[in-house]
């Protein structure tokens, strides 16, 4: 770790918190309705849109109605994305004459974008029409992020409310998240991206007569900036182009790279501040944020350290410098590792370097960050509700140790609540480990791996960790655009999303019904350093217990092979 890597990190965190603080206030104002009460145009447009949709905007939904609305909304989104891909060849805005996407790939991509995963088996510049990109994929970038925000807000309400029946109105929450949070931020960010060189165009690919002139170069364009902005702000991560944020059109320079990284963590960090405000105790928010930051800094440091080491196999050949395979010159090692840590802490999955080519332990960092359940800042909404599950788990474990009924924010944690937490936290590791196991014993699974040995195993493990945690980044050597991988990964993505969301909403409903008890001498405080340590401990312990054997077979084995033999 040199000075630059620390300076970049410090600068990043300072600017992030400075921006997330006011946004947290804005989030609170949007979701408690105080902004709509102040500005009549806001309330009027909300009411008009909801009336068109035939929803009662004042209904306070019990958790199961809220969950039903969320699942219905996402099912319809998946159908639309699938249909647009299959029909794009007869629809407008297709200047490059893209054909219909194959059924299995279209299915995988539909599930992938609806679940905020944005795993991409296809390569954008040679598969998707402009219409599919902007009206199917980019729309889901908004709506899946809005879904995450809505669920997180419902859980906060469950904690904040006192003996209440409902957890809020799903339609109103979805609408507010999309219109008042994601849309304005994306508009500003997209214009900034254009100013740095990201195209926004509806033209056909341009044919260039290259300078040396050996062959012409066909340069694809499209509405890239508008999609890029929400791709990062919504922690979606699905690139317009195959190379994602490593593509110069998606991420042209060091400044755009820095702002893109900020965009990934902005809403997840702001939601933690909003959580503190909405439960009426900012110390609770700060404690959660501290735990996230400590985990993030630690794993980033491991990544930079590992990637800065020269590859011993290459050093022998008389080559100077760090391993630059899969790394862009304008970003270099530090900005690439920071991006890798950010994108996999959050459930973003955009990449500005090819993780498959990272040094073994540098590739371990994004893998492990995903396996921790994407609770280190995490996805938009999903990071906060994931971390709050661990907070409940932490007070439960602490309660067992000191022999008291566990409580979080004055809510007694009972058997039903713990069952929901258990389902939500165990579903994902089961999907990851079972999926990986199936892939490495099945012929069509093995056929997708591109690297030999331990690294090949890491590719499969990475794919399922990414899918079930709704990240979407890849060890991209994996040839995943086959019916086997498309179907299996779509299964992991769908259940990795909704086997968490539904129990989280059930938890929110159960908590909302309970009274909020006053703090007493016997209460375990959940805002001090002790709780922060407890929270970090439960995240790490849980992740480690689930994944150590698999990690030992993948990146750890590869590290020892690479460095041990020389």
């Amino acid at each position, binding site marked *: 770790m040199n000075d630059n890597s620390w300076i970049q990190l410090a600068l990043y965190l300072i600017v992030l918190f400075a921006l997330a603080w006011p946004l947290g206030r804005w989030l609170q104002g949007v979701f408690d309705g105080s902004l709509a009460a102040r500005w009549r145009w806001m309330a009027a447009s909300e009411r008009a849109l909801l009336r068109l949709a035939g929803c009662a905007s004042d209904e306070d939904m019990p958790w199961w109605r809220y969950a039903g609305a969320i699942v219905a909304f996402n099912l319809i989104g998946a159908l639309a994305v699938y249909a647009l891909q299959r029909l794009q060849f007869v629809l407008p805005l297709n200047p490059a004459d893209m054909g219909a996407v194959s059924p299995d790939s279209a299915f995988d991509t539909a599930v992938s974008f609806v679940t905020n995963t944005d795993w991409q088996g296809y390569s954008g510049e040679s598969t998707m029409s402009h219409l599919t990109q*902007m009206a199917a994929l980019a729309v889901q970038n908004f709506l899946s992020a809005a879904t995450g925000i809505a669920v997180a807000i419902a859980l906060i309400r469950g904690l904040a409310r006192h003996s209440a029946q409902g957890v809020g109105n799903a339609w109103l929450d979805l609408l507010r998240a999309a219109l008042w949070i994601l849309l304005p931020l994306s508009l500003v960010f997209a214009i900034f991206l*254009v100013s740095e060189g990201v195209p926004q165009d509806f033209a056909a690919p341009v044919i260039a007569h290259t300078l040396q002139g050996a062959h012409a170069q066909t340069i694809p364009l499209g509405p890239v900036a508008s999609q890029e902005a929400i791709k990062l702000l919504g922690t979606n991560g699905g690139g317009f182009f195959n190379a994602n944020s490593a593509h110069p059109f998606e991420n042209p320079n060091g400044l755009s790279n820095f702002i893109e990284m900020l965009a990934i963590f902005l809403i997840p960090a702001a939601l933690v501040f909003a959580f503190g405000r909405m439960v009426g105790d900012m110390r609770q928010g700060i404690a959660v944020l501290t735990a996230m930051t400590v985990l993030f800094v630690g794993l980033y440091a491991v990544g930079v350290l590992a990637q800065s080491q020269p590859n011993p196999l290459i050093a022998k050949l008389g080559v100077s410098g760090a391993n630059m395979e899969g790394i862009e010159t304008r970003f270099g090692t530090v900005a690439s590792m920071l991006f890798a840590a950010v994108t996999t802490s959050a459930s973003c999955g955009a990449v500005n370097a*090819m993780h498959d080519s990272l040094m073994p332990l540098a590739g371990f960092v994004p893998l492990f960050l995903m396996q921790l359940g994407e609770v280190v800042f995490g996805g938009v909404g999903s990071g906060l509700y994931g971390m709050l599950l661990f907070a409940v788990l932490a007070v439960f474990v602490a309660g067992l140790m000191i022999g008291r009924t566990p409580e979080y924010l004055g809510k007694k944690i009972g058997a039903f609540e713990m069952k929901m937490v258990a389902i939500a936290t165990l579903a994902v590791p089961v999907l990851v480990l079972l999926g990986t196991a199936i892939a490495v014993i099945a012929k069509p699974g093995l056929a997708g791996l591109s690297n030999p040995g331990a690294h090949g195993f890491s590719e499969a493990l990475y794919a399922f960790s990414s899918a079930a945690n709704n990240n979407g980044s890849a060890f991209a050597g994996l040839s995943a655009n086959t019916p086997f991988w498309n179907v299996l990964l779509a299964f992991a993505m769908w259940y990795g999303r909704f086997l968490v969301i539904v129990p989280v909403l059930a938890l929110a409903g159960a908590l909302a019904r309970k009274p909020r008890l006053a703090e007493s001498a016997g209460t375990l405080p959940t805002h001090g350093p002790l709780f922060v340590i407890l929270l970090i401990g439960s995240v790490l312990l849980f992740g480690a217990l689930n994944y150590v054997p698999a990690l030992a077979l993948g990146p750890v084995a590869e590290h020892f092979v690479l460095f041990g033999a020389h």
Partner: protein
Amino acid sequence: MFASFKSAAILFVLLTAITGFVYPLAVYGIARVAFPQQANGSLIERDGHIIGSALIGQNFDAPGYFQGRPSATTPTPYNALASGGSNLGPSNPALIDAMKQRIAVLRKANPDAEKPIPSELVTASASGLDPDISPQTAQWQAPRVARARGLPQMQVQALIDAQTQSPALGLFGEARVNVLALNLALDDAQGAAAHNARR
């Protein structure tokens, strides 16, 4: 439940209209006016032809041009329709073989270059379209380019310095040289020299 689906469908259509059409068109409209060059892909024109984009790297292998990063795109290098990296893992023998090959070619083409070869010149970029190399990597190639062009090495070095972009705000990213811009400057410099000689 049916009512739920109906509401969900209508809300979905409304939000698609706003986020899938109004929003990208608004960005398009503003970009058109405020940043037309960038919005169109930062294209470079010479003599009425588009010769490329300032942001997208091109393949150079002639000795008189600076070379960019190796590109793993298929079927040809720097194929902008198939961006991507090699995705070869650090312990993959195929990666080491590819590097050995690149090293042999580079050594033969650059007999005057000082050792060791910069890592950038033997490792494929992430996008396969990386437009940049570091100033050190450009310098390493300078003797070859100068000799092939019959230009004094001082002049080639001056061109590299002129084309070097420092990190944004002195902080973000790495120092770099855009290979296409450098080669264009090189052509211009030589054109000017030839023009002066003819006079």
